C-alpha cells in the first residue's frame, strides 16, 4: 500500500518540484517494493509447502490476484530502473497511478485472495518462465504506454489534429470508465468474482441503470467528459510541459521499453506459451482467443517497430501505436478472460 502513498507524494512533487519531496517519494516506493518482494517470496514458500511440487514449480502467479500483484511488482521495478537511468522523477506521477489503480482494483473487487491448488494443466516447469516473462514484458509495455501518451500530449498542437483527438478520447474514456466503475463499486459494495461483477453489476448505476433517465444522464455526462478533455486538453499539455522532460526523451523511453518488452514477450509469452500448449494439449497453436490476442498485441508492436522506418511516422503516429499496443495488452490479459468468455457463455442472460 506504500505505492498509493508514493503516488500521492509523486503528484505533490510534480506540483511543488521540491527535491526533498521527490526523494521521499523514491524512498517510499523502494520501501514498498522491498516489502512486496518479501511478501511475494513468503507466499511462494507457503504455496510450495502446500502443493508439495517443489519451489520452481510453485510460482505464485496462478490466478488473477497473484498475477496482478506480480504485474505491479514488475511495473515498479521497471519504473525504478527508468528513474535511476534517466535521473528523472516526473514519470513517477504517471506510472505509480497505474500501480495504484491495479492495487485498488485488487482490493475493491472480489478477486479471490486465497491460495488455490493448481489444476493439472498448470503443473509445469513452463509456468514460471512463461508467466514471469509475460509480465515483465507487460510492465515494459505499460511504461511505454505512459511515456507514449505523455509524448503525444506534449507534441500535439491543434484541436483538429488526429493525434490530439486520439489522446483526448483515450484519456477521456479512461476517466469515464474509471468513474463509472468506481460508482458501481461504491454503490453495490459487493465482493464477487470479477466475471460475475461484470455480468451483474458493471455499469448498472450508469449506462445500464434500469431507469432510462439515469441512463441518458450517464451517457450525457460521459460525452461531456470526453468533450471537456478535448476542449481543455491544453491544460494537461501545459502541466506536462512544466516537467523537466523533453519529447525526445519520452520517445526514447517509449522505444526502449518496447525494445525490451517485445523480444521478452515473443520468447516468454508466445514461444514458451506455444511449447507449453504443445506439451499439454498437443497443439502449439490453436487460435484460441488468448493466443490470438497475444498475436494481435505482437502485431501491434511489430507495427510500432516497423512504423518508425516510414518517413514522417516517427513521433506522433508511432506514439499512437504504442498507446494502442498497451490497450491490446490489457485486453489480452483481462479482456479475454472477463469479456470474451462472458460473450461465449451459453444460455446466460
Amino acid at each position, binding site marked *: 500500500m506504500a505505492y498509493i502513498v508514493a503516488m500521492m507524494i509523486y503528484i505533490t512533487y510534480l506540483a511543488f518540484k521540491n527535491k526533498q519531496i521527490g526523494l521521499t517519494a523514491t524512498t517510499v516506493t523502494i520501501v514498498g517494493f522491498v516489502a512486496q518482494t518479501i511478501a511475494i517470496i513468503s507466499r511462494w514458500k507457503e504455496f510450495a509447502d502446500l502443493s508439495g511440487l517443489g519451489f520452481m514449480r510453485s510460482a505464485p502467479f496462478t490466478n488473477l490476484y497473484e498475477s496482478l500483484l506480480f504485474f505491479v511488482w514488475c511495473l515498479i521495478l521497471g519504473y525504478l530502473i527508468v528513474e535511476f537511468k534517466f535521473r528523472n522523477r516526473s514519470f513517477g506521477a504517471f506510472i505509480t497511478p497505474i500501480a495504484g489503480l491495479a492495487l485498488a482494483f485488487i482490493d475493491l473487487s472480489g478477486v479471490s485472495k486465497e491460495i488455490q*491448488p*493448481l*489444476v*493439472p*494443466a498448470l*503443473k*509445469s516447469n513452463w509456468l514460471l518462465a512463461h508467466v514471469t516473462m509475460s509480465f515483465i514484458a507487460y510492465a515494459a509495455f505499460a511504461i511505454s504506454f505512459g511515456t507514449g501518451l505523455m509524448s503525444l500530449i506534449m507534441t500535439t498542437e491543434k484541436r483538429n489534429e488526429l493525434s490530439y483527438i486520439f489522446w483526448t478520447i483515450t484519456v477521456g474514456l479512461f476517466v469515464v470508465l474509471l468513474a463509472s466503475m468506481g460508482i458501481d463499486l461504491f454503490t453495490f459494495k459487493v465482493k464477487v468474482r470479477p466475471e460475475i461483477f461484470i455480468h451483474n453489476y458493471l455499469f448498472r448505476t450508469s449506462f445500464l441503470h434500469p431507469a432510462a433517465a439515469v441512463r441518458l444522464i450517464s451517457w450525457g455526462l460521459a460525452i461531456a467528459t470526453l468533450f471537456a478533455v478535448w476542449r481543455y486538453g491544453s491544460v494537461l499539455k501545459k502541466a506536462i510541459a512544466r516537467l523537466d522532460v523533453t519529447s525526445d526523451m519520452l520517445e*526514447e523511453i517509449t522505444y526502449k521499453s518496447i*525494445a*525490451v518488452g*517485445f*523480444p521478452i514477450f*515473443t*520468447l516468454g509469452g508466445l*514461444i514458451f506459451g*506455444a*511449447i*507449453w500448449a*504443445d*506439451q*499439454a*494439449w*498437443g*497443439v*502449439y*497453436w490453436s*487460435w484460441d*482467443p488468448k493466443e*490470438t*490476442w497475444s*498475436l*494481435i498485441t505482437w*502485431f*501491434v508492436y*511489430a*507495427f510500432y517497430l*516497423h*512504423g518508425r*522506418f*516510414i518517413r514522417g511516422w516517427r513521433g506522433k503516429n508511432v506514439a499512437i501505436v504504442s498507446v494502442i499496443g498497451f490497450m*491490446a495488452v490489457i485486453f489480452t490479459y483481462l479482456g*479475454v478472460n472477463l469479456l*470474451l468468455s462472458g*460473450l*461465449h457463455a*451459453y444460455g446466460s*442472460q
Partner: protein
Amino acid sequence: MNIDEEQKKKKTVVDTLWDILASVKLAIIIFAFIALTSIIGTVLEQRADPAKNILVLSRLFGESSAPTLYSFFDSLGFMDMYRSWWFKAVLVLFSVNIVICSFDRLPRIWKLVKEPLHPMPADKLGKLLINRQIVIKGKPDAVRSGVTEALKTARFRFTEVQEERGYQFYAQKGNYSRLGVYLTHFSILFILIGAMLGMQFGFKGYLNLPEGALSNSAVSNTDKEIPLGFDIRCDTFDVEFYGGSDMPKEYKSWLTVFKDGREVMRKSIVVNDPLTYEGITFYQSSYGMVPGAAQRGIAVLNAVSRTGKTAALNLRLGDTFQIPDSAVTGKILDFSPALKLDEHGHAVTYANMMNNPALLVEFTEGGTRLFSGWLLRRNPETWQLPNGDRVEFVDYWGVEYTGLQVRKDPGVWVVYLGCITMSIGLFIAFFMSHRRIWVKLSEENNTTRVLIGATTNKNKAAFERTLDRVVSVLSKKQEGVK
C-alpha cells in the same frame, strides 16, 4: 529502339511491383490487417455451432440484425477464418513481403557487414555521429602506450597504422548484428513452413480408450478413422484429488503400445507429459465413464485378516469372497461412483463421475449376518471392519475411459527451429549493435591531440558512455603525469 523502350516500360512495372512488395508500408498494412481481422475471429467463435455465434451477434448488435450479420460474416469465411482462402493468401503475401524485402536490402547490408575499415582523415572523422577529443601532454610516441591502455576499456581489437604526424587506431565489432533482423524475418518463414508441413502430413484427432481396451486407430477432428500402425491399450486410469476435496490434482493413464503383437512401450502419462511412438503423440486431455458400464466394473480388493494374511481379489458386483483364515464371507451388494454421507449420516451418490467410488458389502459368518457397510476408496478408515479384519479397496476397474488427444505433426520441429531462430534474431536485433571507432593521435607542439570518432547503428547513448569512460581514463592519466 521500339523494343528497347517497351522493355524499359515493362521493367518499370516490375520495378514498381518489386518496390511495393519490398516496402515496409506493405508490411505494416499486413500487420494491421491480420490484427484487425483476428479481433473478429476472437469475438466470433471459430468452427462453432451457428446458433452460438448468432447469439453472440445478437448480444452485440441486437436480435433483429443478427441473422443477416451472421450470413454476411459467414459468406466471408469468418466462421473459420484462419483456414479461409483469404487469410492464407495474406500469409502468403506476408511471406513474399519478407523474402522480397530481404533480397532488396541484403546486398547493401552485406556490404556494410563485410566492408573492412580504413583509416580516416581528420576532417571526416570530426563529422561522425559521436565525437570526443582530448589533448595530452607529450609526443604521440610517448603517449601511445597510455592511449592503447585506455582504449582497452572500450573492448575493441584495434588495427594500428602509422601516419604522418602520429598514429591511427580503428576497429569495428558487431558487424554481423546487422543480420539479426533478417534472421528474425526468416524465422517467420520457418514457422509458416512448419505449420504447413503439419497441416499437409500430420493429423489431429482424439481417442477415448476404456480401461483394458485396445485400439489401432484414432478419430480425426472431422470424424474420420485414422489408422495408427500399431495398437495402444489403456491399462488403467486414475484421478487424484486435492485432500478431501473434489478438485482434481492429476489425471493419469497407464498406456501400453503393441507393434505386430509385441509389447514395445509402456508409459504412464499425465497432463503436460505425453507419450510419443512412431511420431504419433498421445496427450492426456479428458476422461469419463464408459456408458452403461458402471455396474459391470471389476472391484480390486485386498482382504486382510486379523492375523495379517492377505488375499488379492478381483470381483464383480454380486460376487462373494472370504477373508483368509476365517469363516467370514463378504458379498458385494451395490456400487456408487461418488459417495458421501449427508448431514443425516445417509450415504448419497453426489456425482456420476468416479470422485469417490464405494462398494456396499455385507459380511456373514456361517450364514448369520454380521454387519454391512460402504467401503469408500478415498477413505481408508472405512476399510476397517468391526471384528478387526480389513478390506482394502484398491480400484474399481473397467468403467472409466481416458480421453486422449492424438496428434502427428512432422512440422513441429521446423516450427521450433523457427522459434529458436526468432529468439536469437530478436536478441541480436535489439541488444547488439554494429559499432565502428576511429582514434587519431596527432602531434601538436609537443602535445598530442587524441581525436575519437565513432558510429553505431543502435543505442548511441550506451556507446557514448563507453567513450566517456575512455576519455576520463585518459584525463586521469594526464593528471598522474603531472
